[in-house]
């Protein structure tokens, strides 16, 4: 069986060989296939082959009623489902012209930020494994478990929560939500410090990541890279700040940026963002009002014909939901703009000339989630 690759086989010199990494490989985090052209251990060319778990979510959505689509957005990114819900739900709300109650907005922000922390912790865990450190994964899972428990109490789901509804929430926060959140927030900063000492500032780790996979700012922008991967390249672009949605303008938080755009900066940005998310959570805990959690939404959702695009800053970058409505119960067309897809596109620019181990390091630092790429 020959491997189909964009680089032709005749162009491979006798020093070079093709290594097929994935779709089943420990560190492609799902079913991403990467075809490498190698000279010894040095990467001469790289080609990511996507689509192994294409599930045609967008097409399925065309045959579903609006309220039935929300769970599908969960499945796009199993690590920060709430943010993806949020983008879709906001788009529909705009189409309907529904005003969401303030308490629901607070709850949304809280769940979204909890989800962001969860996702970044998961990234830390997996990245430790990618770099060959076997312990961080267990440590980060400890904190992640607390968040998962909170989310489970809130929504019933541990990973794909289906937390949001069009117009607000179905259920209010569970009784002990605030207590548990407070308990979690009381130690998360210390734990992040500990994790930075354990992995991010480790001498072997810094030697492997500093100056590695440098993504210049203009290249990142040209490729449409967003999220922590973009902010690592010293570009303070965060939709929560630059195109505010929900009630993010009310909160005081820093947009963390790196300096050189190398792998280490991207890692550091994620660790800093955990702290900032915790700050937002603290403010939200203090400010959350009482009141309704559900807006008045018609029983049958039939938006007026038109189209709307809504975007959120999810853990991996900019996630957008584009909906075209033709006035029926089902959307005419839905398109999701997923951040990992754009982030992956830059990999060829920044990995050529590095070693096999660096491909793993750079790919890990882009924090890819495959179902979201394949959709």
């Amino acid at each position, binding site marked *: 069986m020959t491997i189909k690759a964009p680089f032709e086989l005749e162009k491979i010199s006798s020093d070079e*060989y093709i*290594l097929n990494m994935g779709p089943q*490989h*420990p*560190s492609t985090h799902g079913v991403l296939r990467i075809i490498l052209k190698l000279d010894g*251990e040095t990467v001469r060319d790289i080609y990511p082959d996507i689509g192994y778990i294409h599930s045609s979510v967008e097409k399925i959505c065309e045959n579903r009623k609006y309220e039935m689509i929300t769970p599908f957005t969960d499945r796009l990114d199993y690590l920060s489902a709430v943010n993806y819900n949020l983008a879709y739900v906001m788009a529909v709300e705009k189409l309907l012209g529904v005003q969401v109650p303030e308490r629901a907005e607070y709850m949304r922000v809280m769940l979204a930020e909890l989800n962001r922390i969860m996702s970044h912790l998961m990234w830390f865990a997996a990245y*430790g*494994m*990618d*770099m*060959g*450190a*076997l*312990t961080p994964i*267990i*440590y980060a899972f*400890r904190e992640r478990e607390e968040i998962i428990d909170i989310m489970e109490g809130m929504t019933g789901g541990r990973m794909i929560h289906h937390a949001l509804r069009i117009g607000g929430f179905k259920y209010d926060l569970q009784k002990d939500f605030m207590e548990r959140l407070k308990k979690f927030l009381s130690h998360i900063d210390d734990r992040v410090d500990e994790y930075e000492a*354990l*992995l991010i500032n*480790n001498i*072997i*780790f810094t*030697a*492997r990541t500093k100056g590695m996979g440098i993504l210049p700012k203009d290249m990142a922008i040209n490729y449409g890279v967003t999220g922590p991967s973009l902010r690592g390249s010293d570009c303070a672009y965060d939709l929560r700040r630059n195109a505010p949605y929900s009630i993010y303008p009310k909160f005081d938080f820093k947009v963390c940026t790196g300096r050189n755009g190398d792998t280490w900066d991207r890692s550091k940005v994620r660790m800093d963002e955990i702290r900032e998310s915790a700050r937002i959570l603290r403010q939200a805990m203090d400010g959350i009002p009482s009141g309704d959690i559900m807006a008045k939404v018609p029983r049958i959702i039939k938006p007026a014909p038109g189209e709307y695009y809504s975007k959120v800053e999810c853990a991996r970058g900019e996630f957008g939901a584009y909906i075209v409505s033709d006035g029926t119960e089902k959307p005419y067309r839905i398109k999701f703009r997923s951040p990992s897809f754009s982030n992956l596109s830059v990999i060829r620019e920044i990995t050529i000339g590095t*070693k*096999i*181990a*660096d491909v*793993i390091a750079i790919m890990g630092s882009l924090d890819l989630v495959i179902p979201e790429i394949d959709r």
Partner: protein
Amino acid sequence: MDLLKDILYNTDKPWNQFYGWAHAGWANWGWPPFILDIIFQLCFAVIIAVVLILNALWIIYYDRKIAALFQIRKGPNRVGPLGLFQTIADTVKLLIKEDINPKAVDLAVFFLAPVFIFIPTFMVMLVIPFGRGLIPADLNIGILYVMAITGLSVIGILMAGWGSNSKYSLIGGLRSAVQLVSYEIPMMLVILTIVMMSGTLSMGGIVQAQAGYKWFWLPQIVGFILFLIAGNAEVNRAPFDLPEAESELVAGFNTEYSAMKFAFFYLAEYVNLFITSAIAATLFLGGWEGPLLPPVVWFFIKTYFVVTLLMWIRWTFPRLRVDHLMEFSWKYLIPIALLNMVVTAFVIKLV
């Protein structure tokens, strides 16, 4: 009672008595004495093999428990009391699994590789001094023998990498060759320093040279640290686990291995860990010397102290990159080891 005490604390005395008695009896029958020696040596070999396997079983369990300690979890605790039989269960599982030979492998090389990796680990035990007089053969070139034999395992790994006919395996095998060769040099230099200090190559002699609690780790603290680093690299464990880097090479040189062949690699890794620690204990921590407890117990305490240190390192650090690995050995370890040797030589000459 006295006999028991002698066996525990002063093993060579009752052994010499028994040896003389056996030979006297043997001479009565009029058979050539070398046959008896061969029988004795076969007995030793069996004893060592049993000790080796049992110890490997225990050390795997111990590693998992230590990992669990560092990773705030419980570790194996289901099979037998405290999960002690976990490794036995795993071994049985591996034994009864199907032995898969992929189509494209070079069968002879593929088959011999685990043997080549496991046999040297077994042979090294010949010169390890477990206690006073409790050394299978106190060769006068003991430490040289150790270095020569442990150098063989690289051939096994190369064979596994080449014979598997898989790219991941090949990269793993070649990485391993490069790594073992580069880290053998600082290790050799450190051992040379110890040999200079003790004035002998025999393992028993090195322990004798440290008698009276003049253990070498204090004057040779630099050498001890270098030895631990190089030794860790020699046994291919994190942060030097490049040959089997899971996240990069799937499983490196043992990607294509399954069932008992894989178990041999696994066992060899842990036996190598034990041997490296045992040599470190012998060279730097005074071997079996220690108060009150029998020498054998002291030997195992010290060895397991080093084992624990190496495990601690393993479960803490991320993996090095292949060029950093080379750089680290050639630019730092070897110059430091050379300097250490020169300084030691001067000190020995002057004092």
